[in-house]
């Protein structure tokens, strides 16, 4: 199974990663639901990870994998904090629309 992927040009992987990144970015900008925005950000992380892992595989250097691992860990921390903020905001404002919640505007 693994061999069947052999021969796929790295460019294809990079194009895939870019598309995923683009989709994630669009979501993060366009959506107003903070949960979906966060998920879009996760998508972008994953696109980056994919690129790292492909390059690691190409160079046969596991530094890329280590970097991807760190990204996953940091993403976990990020998600936890962000969701905590969402919960707090919801408790405070009874809504989560990022355009409506403007407490930082003063």
């Amino acid at each position, binding site marked *: 199974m693994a061999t069947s992927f052999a021969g796929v040009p790295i460019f294809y992987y990079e194009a895939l990663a870019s598309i995923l990144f*683009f989709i994630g970015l669009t979501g993060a900008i366009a959506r107003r639901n903070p949960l979906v925005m966060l998920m879009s950000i996760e998508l972008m992380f994953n696109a980056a990870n994919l690129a790292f892992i492909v390059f690691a595989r190409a160079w046969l250097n596991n530094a890329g994998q280590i970097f991807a691992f760190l990204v996953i860990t940091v993403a976990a921390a990020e998600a936890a904090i962000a969701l905590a903020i969402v919960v707090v905001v919801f408790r405070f404002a009874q809504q989560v629309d990022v355009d409506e919640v403007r407490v930082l505007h003063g």
Partner: protein
Amino acid sequence: MIPFWIIAAVLIVSALWTVTARKPIYSVVSLLLNFAALATTYLILHAEFLAVMQIIVYSGAILMLFVFVIALLNSGIAAVVLGRDRVPVAPAAAAALAAVAFVATAIAAAHAPAIAPIATHSPLGAVGRGNVFGSIGDFGQALFLSRLLPFEITALILMVAVVGVVLLAGDLTPYVPTRRRAEQTRRALREAILREGK
């Protein structure tokens, strides 16, 4: 080639669904699918440990957290009522940024060697042997020997995150033992009664 196209199609469709889904829970489900496909890709790219981590951490922990928050915030089925999405501007801005990323990776890809099969009898390498690329042993050695500092920094970041989350979402009222709280309530009640003169 065909498996790659299939996986790629799954990845893109599920990513699109994640971003466009009407209900956040659909985003979660599609993202789950996306992660599964990604994990498969990682496995094929000899990132064995990362494939498992992708499932355990991303699907099992992070995404679960999303489900949890959705259930907490929105106990019903109806989507959280929100204003209109900012659709028209978004793709342009995103496309610009994505183009930059694409150009960067394309340059990198141009320099990278083609993916060559790793010539071992066991494609994933012997367990625990640090010299086979992508094996858990190899990964572990790299993590704990050559890349220990970033690992420890990540641990610190995680710790900070945990403390932050507890402070943010936790109950910030000072802890009072139950018995003492009951006593306080009783006293307050008595005082209120005295004030009211009843």
